[in-house]
């Protein structure tokens, strides 16, 4: 009988570099509130959000991904031709096929890297990091670019009071590759399809097109139910991710949750009993909720602001439509 040859990867993997792309146009609450009969004060009180960024025509999902990835590769000191795999996490690449990732891989100048998109909504980036970790350790890839990118402004209704002030645009990327020490902990992930209705595209494309006055299907969300799930169920998931990585909550330096809403971050930190010394990502205040892009954007921001340093132990946790979630502890590059 013929025995197949298999390959072994690196014993350990880690995040080697981080990059971000923030669209140029800053949109303050004052531009949003009239259409939803609200106020700057209410939006800030409800979400912490002061401004967000909306992409223009030239800032496409692919263009933002390429820009963020170039920064991440440069930070990692990795040439694009060394990249074996490109994973794009997004729900707002509006061309159904081909994936955004193939174009990103091409424009980055990879040597025909494997490329595919991941649809896990706000949790997509942490799903991508989990897969990249296993690809590198399993020997399927040596260097993987993981991107979280969204143009949620394309699929957000300006007049929906529950979401118009929340969703925004941007891209963040990391390079995952071999590491001499364990730098990405085991993923704790899962889904709860029973609650698929809590955050979703309002209708599918066929129904949208068949309507008398067809319009772009937009995102809808049941805010209070999502708040309950995100603040409490995710606190338990966060603790599981710490346990699986063998890290106590006191050893944590940075907490980087999906930037859904500053109130969720506060409630999550309280429900987790996060110690006061842990630095908490608050990028949502200036960036809004950028779904799959929010964790890498917040990570890049913390590094740039000096709140996160090389060697710091950070907990990443992301959660959203599906419902789906993923969390892992990482050591920062």
């Amino acid at each position, binding site marked *: 009988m013929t025995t197949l040859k298999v390959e072994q990867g690196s014993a350990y993997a880690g995040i080697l570099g981080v990059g971000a792309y923030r669209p140029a146009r800053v949109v303050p609450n004052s531009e949003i509130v009239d259409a939803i009969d609200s106020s700057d004060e209410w939006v800030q*009180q*409800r979400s912490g959000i002061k401004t967000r960024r909306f992409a223009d025509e030239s800032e496409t999902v692919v263009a933002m991904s390429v820009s963020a990835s170039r920064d991440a590769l440069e930070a990692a000191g990795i040439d694009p031709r060394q990249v074996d795999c490109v994973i794009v996490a997004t729900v707002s690449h509006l061309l159904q096929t081909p994936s955004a990732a193939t174009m990103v891989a091409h424009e980055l100048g990879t040597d025909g890297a494997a490329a595919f998109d991941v649809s896990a909504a706000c949790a997509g980036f942490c799903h991508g990091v989990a897969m990249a970790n296993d690809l590198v350790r399993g020997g399927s890839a040596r260097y993987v670019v993981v991107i979280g990118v969204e143009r949620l402004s394309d699929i957000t209704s300006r007049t929906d009071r529950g979401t118009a002030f929340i969703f925004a645009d941007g891209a963040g990327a990391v390079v995952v590759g071999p590491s001499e020490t364990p730098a990405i902990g085991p993923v704790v992930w899962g889904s709860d399809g029973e609650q698929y209705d809590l955050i979703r595209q309002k209708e599918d494309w066929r129904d949208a097109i068949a309507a008398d006055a067809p319009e772009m299907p937009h995102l809808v969300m049941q*805010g*209070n*139910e999502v*708040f*309950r799930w995100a*603040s*409490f169920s995710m606190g338990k998931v966060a603790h599981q991710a710490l346990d699986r990585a063998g890290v106590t909550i006191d050893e944590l330096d940075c907490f980087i949750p999906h930037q859904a809403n500053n*109130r969720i971050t506060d*409630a999550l930190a*309280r*429900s987790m009993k996060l110690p006061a010394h842990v630095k908490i990502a608050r990028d949502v205040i200036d960036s809004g909720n950028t779904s799959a892009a929010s964790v890498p954007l917040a990570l890049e921001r913390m590094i740039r602001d000096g709140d996160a340093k090389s060697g710091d132990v950070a907990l990443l946790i992301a959660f959203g439509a599906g419902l789906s979630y993923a969390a892992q502890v990482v050591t920062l590059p």
Partner: protein
Amino acid sequence: MSTEEIRAALAEIVNEVAGVDADDVQLDKSFVEDLDVDSLSMVEVVVEAEEKFGVTIPDDQVKNLKTVGDAVSYIESARAAA
């Protein structure tokens, strides 16, 4: 637990979640109008209360809990039924 003990324990939760002075959390006070506890904070209060008192407060009941007294009565009957 007496009504007063439930009120006092609930007041501690409201203080922790929303920063409201625990002495202000009296039975006749409205969460929204008197204590400035909005719907998101109310979700947190409810979940903490469920844990503390060992009861279940479904989402569709939360909107009926307008005053501290409403919440205390709900918790009392839920505990009695348990």
